[in-house]
């Protein structure tokens, strides 16, 4: 196996880096104690597993947290929810042989920017958000917002602008599923509402997590063919 340093370099990390903070891209690792329940949440991280995952095809993420304080932080529960959601998303896509590589964790839009984007009032405003911000790298932008008013908790307005996901601290699992689901839309997948175990089944019709994260072979092929999927390290 390639060395950790070589793999880190492959996913775009240079110089000195932290394993949990940079190679995984988390503020903190599990257990994420501020979750309402630890049921089905990851309880540990495996460096070896993550190294193996980036040696398969993978994609990168930019996490843009909206509505932070001026230090770039949401509430502790919201920060843990984000980390947990990304780890579960890693596990979901790894089941299909696709890794999540670099996670740039520390992008933010503070409340003091006075954009109003911390409360997304419609899909149209979610579209405004993804148009308004961009990051000049090859990661997929995931905008984590504290509140998305409506019956859905996420949106993928259009490629390549990114996805918008509500941080739902009442259910870390649901936030994770929404992240994985919206990324599925980003990769071009449509809904599969007659398949309650499928990741692309809308949550109102899907089985409870963790039993609704499957993709079929056609869907997996579509994801693998997406432009954002990088070659194996």
């Amino acid at each position, binding site marked *: 196996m390639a060395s950790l340093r070589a793999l880190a370099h492959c996913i775009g990390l240079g110089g000195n880096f*932290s394993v*949990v903070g940079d190679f995984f891209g988390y503020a*903190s*690792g*599990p257990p*994420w*104690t501020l979750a309402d329940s630890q049921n089905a949440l990851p309880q*540990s*991280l*495996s*460096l070896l597993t993550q190294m193996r995952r980036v040696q398969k095809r993978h994609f990168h993420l930019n996490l843009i947290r909206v509505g932070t304080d001026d*230090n*770039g*932080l949401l509430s*502790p529960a919201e*920060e843990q929810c984000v980390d947990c959601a990304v780890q579960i998303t890693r596990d979901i896509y790894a089941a299909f042989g696709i890794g999540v590589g670099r996670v*740039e964790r*520390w992008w*933010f*839009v*503070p409340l003091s920017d*006075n*954009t*109003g984007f*911390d*409360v997304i*009032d*419609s*899909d*149209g*405003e979610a*579209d*405004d958000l993804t*148009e*308004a*911000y*961009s*990051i*000049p790298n090859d990661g997929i932008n995931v905008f984590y917002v*504290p*509140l*998305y*008013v*409506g*019956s*859905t*908790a*996420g*949106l993928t307005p*259009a490629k390549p*602008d990114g996805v918008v996901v509500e941080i*739902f601290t*009442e259910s870390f699992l649901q936030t994770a599923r929404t992240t994985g689901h*919206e990324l599925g*839309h980003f990769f*071009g997948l449509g809904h599969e509402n007659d398949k309650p175990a499928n990741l692309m089944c*809308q949550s*109102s*019709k899907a089985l*409870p997590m963790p039993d609704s994260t499957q993709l079929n072979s056609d869907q997996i092929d579509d994801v693998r063919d997406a432009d954002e999927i990088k070659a194996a390290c």
Partner: protein
Amino acid sequence: MSEQIISPERLRAVVLGQDKTLRRVTAMALLATSRPPHAEDVFAQVLANEKEHPRMRAAAAVSLGKLGTPAAEEALIKQSRVSDQRVLADVAKALGRIGGERALAALAQVRQRTTGLVAAQAQFAAALISHRLGLAGNELAAPDGKNLIELPPAGARPVQFAKAEAGEAALSLRTLAFEPIGIEYDQNALYQVRCGRSVRMLAINRAFTAAGAINKLTARKTLLGAVALKSVETDGYSISHYLLTEPGRQPNTATLLVYRTNGTQAFAGTAQVTGARVSFSLRAVNHPGATPVRLEGTFENGQLNMQTALAAPARQPGRQPARTARPSRNRPNLTPNPPTS
């Protein structure tokens, strides 16, 4: 969560925070779309409650805007003196969508005593109302020609305009009814717009599609229509842009102004009215994330004909979000990292 029918009583209880078995904003959305009697009262209660989190109060303001009733407008006007700026911004925004002349007076007071986002939202909200009602004042600035982006010479992709099929037209009207902006759309003047993977619906205000009505563009300000984004998630449509016009400086002309829902001026151009025909051209206004376009066509007797409809293959860069270095482990609000297994 499996699909189930939820009673209005349970929805009210969830919205008021008394029942925690459902996501509160989901309940707000369901209450706003099902519209049981006195739904306004529930949202008004949350909006007025200073002990509520400001975001939840803001969500209540949004929900009142989606009801669009006189009682909803009244509740929003009543709360236009709230002190929390995050709440007030969404109160102003909702008033812009559904308010009338009384709302204009409330918004003027908001503008006088606020700055930043709230003042900007109040100003844009007042402009929306004024354009919808054709009132003087609250004009919007047409961009300087230097601020319009020309399409790059190479790589343009087509923007496809097509009359909406009956099913899609009905879907768009049905879902847009949940985002009222005080106008009625002409069901025969709905055009689906496709560019890349994005699907939108152009919906024209039926007050201006009847024979001869288009001449009003040269005589008064208008809220000519809206562009709505089709959601991959819900399949429904949600307004992404407002189409506004103001009489032009030259005879028989109008200035076209297309705004995003957050008040960002996205596109601008001119329209020439000749009899029942409007010839128009639109370009993108320079702003973060702008997509350069060249859109030219005619609109006559409710029929849209595009002569040129092109967009750049990519948007201009948006603003870059702020970025902090990874905080140290000793930050008080982060748990320490465990050893990896």
